[in-house]
């Protein structure tokens, strides 16, 4: 976005931006800070603000066993599959409901919304029974299936908003220029959806990456644990929780999300400036 902003506006925006950054990041900072401290420094009447003199002790604990790497593998598989399938399924569905008029279209949209409204606190037991019947307990496929269904309604709804945000006239214009309807869609509309795909993709990624309750009951075997389940091994109510281990583990869990975002964030600023639609 290259539109000039007047100086006072820019300065105000920057100041608020810095404040927002500090508020958003402070708890994260506290997590990273704690991950370098010993347990008796983490909780203390006088807070330790910076981890000077801290150690990598907590991180060494994490890598003492192969559990972390194992859980990482499972989480990467489940999350990767969830994002790919959810985005793929949702994308075509969103195109259908926002670019076509057909019988049952509204019903489909409203059904999605109602599904989204169902409270999930009691649902996991039923989902467990279902996966049991399908023989998919303790499998990546089983967990992925419920995750995909979990993020689909949201993803379709949001992507639908993004498709609707691209004026159909643009496609029409391209069609007048001699493109077929499909060509027009992929040349004009699709690039404009990139930010939407990124935003919903990040959402799906984080949902699957951090989900706990379903994974807890579905993945009971040690070699099938996802990262959030692995994290609970540090919280032993009968032996005292290893806070440093939790914070070190959490820091490691957060890193792939940031990496994923950095890989896709360039797509967030494409917008109409990409030049494909001048005229």
């Amino acid at each position: 976005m290259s539109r000039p902003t007047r100086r006072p506006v820019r300065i105000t925006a920057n100041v608020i931006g810095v404040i927002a950054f500090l508020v958003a990041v402070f708890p994260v900072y506290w997590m990273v800070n704690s991950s370098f401290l010993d347990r008796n420094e983490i909780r203390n009447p006088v807070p330790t603000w910076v981890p000077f003199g801290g150690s990598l002790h907590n991180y060494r604990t994490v890598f003492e066993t192969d559990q972390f790497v194992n859980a990482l593998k499972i989480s990467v598989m489940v999350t990767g599959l969830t994002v790919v399938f959810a985005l793929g399924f949702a994308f075509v569905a969103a195109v259908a409901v926002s670019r076509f008029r057909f019988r049952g279209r509204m019903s489909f949209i409203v059904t999605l919304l109602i599904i989204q409204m169902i409270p999930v606190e009691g649902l996991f037991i039923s989902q467990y029974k279902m996966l049991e019947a399908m023989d998919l307990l303790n499998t990546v496929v089983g967990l992925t299936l419920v995750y995909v269904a979990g993020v689909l309604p949201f993803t379709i709804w949001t992507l639908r908003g993004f498709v609707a945000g691209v004026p159909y006239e643009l496609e029409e214009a391209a069609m007048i220029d001699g493109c077929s309807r499909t060509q027009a869609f992929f040349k004009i509309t699709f690039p404009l959806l990139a930010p939407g795909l990124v935003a919903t993709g990040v959402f799906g990624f984080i949902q699957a990456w951090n989900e706990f309750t379903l994974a807890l009951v579905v993945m009971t075997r040690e070699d099938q644990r996802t990262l959030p389940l692995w994290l609970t091994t540090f919280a032993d109510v009968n032996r005292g929780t290893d806070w440093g281990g939790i914070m070190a583990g959490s820091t490691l869990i957060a890193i792939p999300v940031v990496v994923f975002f950095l890989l896709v964030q360039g797509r967030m600023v494409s917008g109409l400036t990409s030049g494909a639609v001048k005229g």
Partner: protein
Amino acid sequence: MTTVEGGKAPRARRTPLPYALLVPATIALVVALGYPLVRQVVLSFQDFGLAQQFGRPPAWIGLQNYRDLLTDPYLWTVTLRTLLFCLVNAAATMLVGVGLALLMQHMSKPIRILVQSGLLLAWAMPVVAAMTVWEWLFDTQYGVINYLLTEIGLDFEGHSWLLQPLSFFFVATVIVVWMSVPFVAFTVYAALTQVSEDMVEAAEIDGASGWQRLRHIVLPSIRPVLLVVALLQVIWDLRVFTQIYILQKAGGSTHDTNLLGTYIYRLGIGSGKFGMAAAVAMFMLVLTVVLTAPYVRAMLKQEEN
């Protein structure tokens, strides 16, 4: 002045294509959610406890669960509390999130990237860690917040933030908003990048002020996304669970701070009354539908025109 009329769909044509496009999503939803949903409905008409979970046949009791529930004044207290909490949180989240997204457009590039990475870090933080850290920050004895307030001369030594229900919900709101703003800000910012720059420029040349441009061009073009995000926020804040559940363990009175989400959980897993929990869940679903119906109606109506 022209406004962008988003998403005018082409005239209906008799083609199976749209149906074909819906097939993958429909199959995934039916397979993964169909049976659990049916079971949820069925359970709400049964006396289903832990013994039934392990194979004892459940008894059908018709509407008994619902009758017990709706005549319990506690349910209505919790419902009212949940509604208020939801409205405050959804409004605060939308305000902060949309505000940030709009401001991001006007920030210098390095600052914008800073804000985006900050939001992303907050979003990416595992829930266990996030809740633990927030618990520590507000801790009665060793909390950083009490420490700082005491340092600047206020009497906050040993102040319990969770003791009074109002203060408890204030802390919960801070945490919920902190956790939800990144999603809103990201999605709305993504939508803003779609807004036609030519149009905004044209308006500027026509002499429209910043506020006018925002109202007549920017907001209408991101309207579809804005509406969805707001609706989702309401739905999610009605269901809020983890934050309340963990804060209740840290302090405060559970009875005075239960919301529908924690109430269902305490009935179900907490007490093994799965039939009853299913009935509350159905009640909550109906509540959500009723609550959002006017909104959804307006949203769909607009689309039809």
